[in-house]
């Protein structure tokens, strides 16, 4: 058995205010959910959308229902209690959908099966809306967001490669220009600049680099030696000056050495200076006691003498200072002298190993500089010092020539580096440009494949869909030539145009010429054509109240279409509030054997969604006959209505002669009277079952028999009537029994429908295959 829905359970979801299990019959490919408005059809369809597609369903398109997660929860229920459970036959685990952070979340193995849901609002969009909105309504089938995104990324990639190619070409051109300039500066030797540059670039830069380094070493040694000489000269001058100052200070101190002898006297004078102002007899000498001392005068003289003696002390201090300065200058000069010797020794080392012409040209006689050629830096002696000074002076002559040579070699080194880098750049960028060019060509070839495939893919889909829609429409509107074509407008992104052919005029907008019922059925046909193409044969396809405006013949053909197309889908679910649709199935005008009929009762807040199985008319009549207590009125009424339905179909099929009335509301008597003698005699059914001989049943006697009981329908089932009260229950039951017998002869057990298919033979076929099912003879009414 194909995998189909076994049960859909709703708790706290929209109209399911009370938890409800909706049973499905997996053996039947079609489920017809009938319910009047407000019975919960949309809740069930939205629940399928929720668990299969993680969508909020029909409330998405309704204004004032944001946030969606709030309104998808049943009244007086909490989001945490919302649960939609989908059980598929043959699958061990169901899929369970809940609300997580305001979004649908589905647990279960793999993905839930996909449900394609068509609502009436979408039909309007498919047909009537602007091309962009039409595209949006169908984008689930034709949109290629992933491929288009990847395609755009490839275009961006190609732009990047182009950029790289241009950069490489530009860098190559610049390098070539630079090399060409150098080549021109060199006088254009050889055949061309690049050959020249490659040849020049082969030179070993390390030799030149070592020479420049060696020249730099000599230059540095010369400069260091020169600085040492200069420094030594300055420190020598300083030393001599300091020495002179020291000697002068020394002489000045020696000159005052005599005064140094009076140092005891200074102490005595200082004592006297302290004593005299406080002497008891100041006019008397404290040593010889002679009178006549003038104290004031004496104190003045003492002060003068003490001042002179202080100057001697200052000179001594100055002597110490100049001595220290001299000693420092002497040390500095000694150190400078040592530095001079060291720098000359270093210079000798650099010069002695150099083969540079400018050094050779000095003709240094190293025999004259034995100490400078020593392995280690020589000690400071006057001989060594003189050698050092001589060497420095001798070598000084090569300083400027060396500098010029070094600058020339540095320029040559730089030019070699530039040439080598230029050649490398030309080679590298040539390769980069070649690589980029190859990549660009390859990427463009890939892009061309993707672009072409995408365009072909979309065009083919739309062409196929257009043809399929035409084929499907032909079933519903045979001979009317309904042709609708879809195409993407190349001038606009995501714009799906449509055009139609009407009365032989091509390329007219379908909404301008077709009737509302045509547009409705065209919309459904478009949807089914797309679902057929992309469904993979196992999708759940749902039509939610999509057709309301078609007349009876079109409705019948629409039913035929759904039934014939159901095999292309995993399961077809049709929700409708259109009762004639239901009644046609119930009265064998459609193959009820392959259609599950599900009825929804009135919805209420306290009871939620109510549902029940719908019985076909013959089953309902049999159950009514078998019911205890026996409801004679109901049985008679149901039997009469069912008989009317059968006779109505037969009289239509055989184009029976009926009274002409404004509305075809024929009575039972009129319908029975429609069967002329010829038809009544010829009418028979033949059942073909696998492996069994055909079973033929004449209907003539059955109709004659029923004819004698038909008054029961009115008198028992339809009116308050004393004559009817006399009819025994057994006769009412017999009447019903005869009608169920007739129904069982006329209705195929296999498909559950009356034979109404003309396959160009001598009889009518039911909806079963060629070799089995029920056949009704004759094909034509012999009375006509």
């Amino acid at each position, binding site marked *: 058995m194909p995998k189909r829905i076994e049960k859909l359970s709703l708790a706290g979801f929209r109209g399911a205010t009370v938890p409800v299990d909706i049973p499905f019959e997996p053996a039947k490919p079609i489920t017809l959910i009938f319910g009047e408005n407000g019975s919960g059809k949309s809740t069930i369809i939205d629940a399928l959308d929720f668990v299969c597609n993680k969508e909020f369903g029909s409330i998405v398109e309704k204004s004032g229902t944001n946030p969606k997660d709030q309104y998808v929860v049943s009244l007086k229920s909490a989001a945490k209690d919302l649960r939609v459970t989908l059980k598929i036959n043959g699958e061990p685990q169901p899929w369970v959908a809940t609300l997580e952070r305001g979004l649908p979340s589905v647990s279960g193995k793999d993905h839930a099966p996909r449900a394609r849901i068509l609502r009436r609002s979408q039909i309007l969009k498919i047909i009537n809306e602007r091309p962009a909105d039409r595209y949006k309504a169908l984008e689930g089938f034709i949109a290629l967001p*992933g*491929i288009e995104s990847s395609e755009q*990324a490839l275009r961006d990639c190609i732009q990047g490669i182009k950029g790289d190619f241009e950069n490489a070409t530009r860098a190559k051109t610049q390098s070539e220009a630079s090399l060409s300039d150098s080549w021109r500066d060199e006088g254009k030797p050889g055949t061309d600049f690049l050959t020249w540059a490659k040849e020049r670039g082969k030179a070993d830069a390390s030799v030149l680099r070592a020479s420049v380094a060696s020249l730099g070493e000599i230059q540095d040694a010369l400069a260091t030696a020169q600085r040492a000489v200069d420094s030594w000269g300055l420190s020598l001058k300083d030393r001599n000056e300091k020495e002179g100052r020291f000697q002068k200070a020394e002489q000045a101190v020696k000159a005052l050495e005599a005064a140094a002898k009076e140092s005891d006297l200074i102490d005595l004078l200082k004592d006297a200076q302290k004593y005299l102002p406080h002497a008891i007899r100041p006019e008397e000498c404290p040593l010889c006691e002679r009178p006549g001392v003038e104290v004031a005068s004496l104190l003045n003289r003492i002060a003068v003498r003490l001042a002179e003696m202080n100057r001697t002390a200052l000179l001594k201090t100055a002597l110490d200072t100049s001595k220290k300065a001299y000693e420092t200058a002497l040390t500095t000069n000694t150190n400078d002298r040592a530095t001079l010797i060291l720098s000359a020794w270093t210079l000798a080392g650099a010069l002695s190993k150099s083969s540079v012409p400018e050094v050779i040209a000095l003709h240094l006689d190293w025999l004259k500089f034995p100490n400078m050629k020593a392995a280690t830096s020589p000690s400071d002696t006057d001989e060594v010092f003189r050698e050092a000074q001589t060497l420095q002076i001798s070598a000084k002559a090569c300083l400027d020539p060396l500098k010029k040579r070094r600058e020339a070699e540095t320029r040559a080194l730089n030019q070699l580096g530039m040439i080598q880098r230029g050649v490398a750049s030309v080679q590298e960028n040539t390769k980069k440009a070649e*690589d980029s060019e190859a*990549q660009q060509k390859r990427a463009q070839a890939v892009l061309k*494949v993707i672009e072409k495939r*995408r365009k072909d*893919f979309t065009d083919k889909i739309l062409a196929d869909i257009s043809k399929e829609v035409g084929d499907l429409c032909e079933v519903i509107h045979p001979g009317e030539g309904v042709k609708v074509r879809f195409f993407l407008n190349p001038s606009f992104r995501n714009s799906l145009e449509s055009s139609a052919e009407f009365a032989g005029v091509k390329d007219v907008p379908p909404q301008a010429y077709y009737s509302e019922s045509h547009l409705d059925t065209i919309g459904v046909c478009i949807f089914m054509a797309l679902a057929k193409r992309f469904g993979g044969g*196992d999708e*759940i396809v749902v039509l939610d109240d999509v057709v309301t405006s078609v007349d009876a013949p079109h409705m019948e053909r629409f039913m035929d279409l759904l039934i014939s197309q159901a095999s292309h889908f995993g399961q077809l679910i049709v929700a409708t509030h259109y009762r004639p649709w239901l009644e046609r199935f119930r009265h064998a005008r459609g193959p009820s054997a392959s259609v599950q009929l599900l009825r929804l009762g009135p919805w209420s807040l306290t009871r939620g969604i109510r549902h029940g199985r719908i019985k076909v008319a013959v089953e309902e009549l049999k159950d009514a006959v078998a019911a205890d207590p026996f409801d004679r009125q109901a049985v008679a009424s149901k039997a009469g209505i069912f008989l009317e339905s059968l006779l109505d179909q037969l009289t239509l099929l055989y184009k029976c002669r009926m009274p002409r009335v404004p509305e075809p509301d024929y009575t039972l008597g009129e319908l029975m009277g429609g069967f002329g003698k010829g038809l009544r005699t010829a009418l028979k059914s033949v059942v073909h079952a696998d492996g069994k001989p055909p079973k033929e049943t004449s209907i003539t006697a059955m109709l004659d028999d029923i004819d004698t009981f038909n008054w029961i329908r009115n008198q028992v089932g339809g009116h308050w009537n004393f004559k009817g009260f006399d009819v025994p229950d057994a006769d009412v039951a017999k009447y019903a029994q005869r009608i169920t017998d007739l129904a069982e002869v006329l209705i195929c057990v296999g498909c559950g429908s009356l034979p109404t298919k003309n396959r160009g033979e001598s009889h009518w076929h039911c909806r079963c295959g060629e070799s089995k099912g029920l056949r009704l003879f004759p094909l034509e009414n012999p009375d006509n």
Partner: protein
Amino acid sequence: MTMDRTPDQLLAQEIIADLRADRLLAEKQMAGLAANLESGKLKPEDWRVIVEMAVDSQQGGKNAKAN
């Protein structure tokens, strides 16, 4: 019931078949390319690597088609 294939998935398979037939990309790139192609996860830098490998590969290089 199984999941159906999206238009992106269907087209990705067709594109891969064409690329393989034209030998425009390196065979080792083909395995994961369909999934990335259909999901739109390919970035310009990803394409760059794919194209570089295709050009570098002996097989792809010999059969490159210029526009």
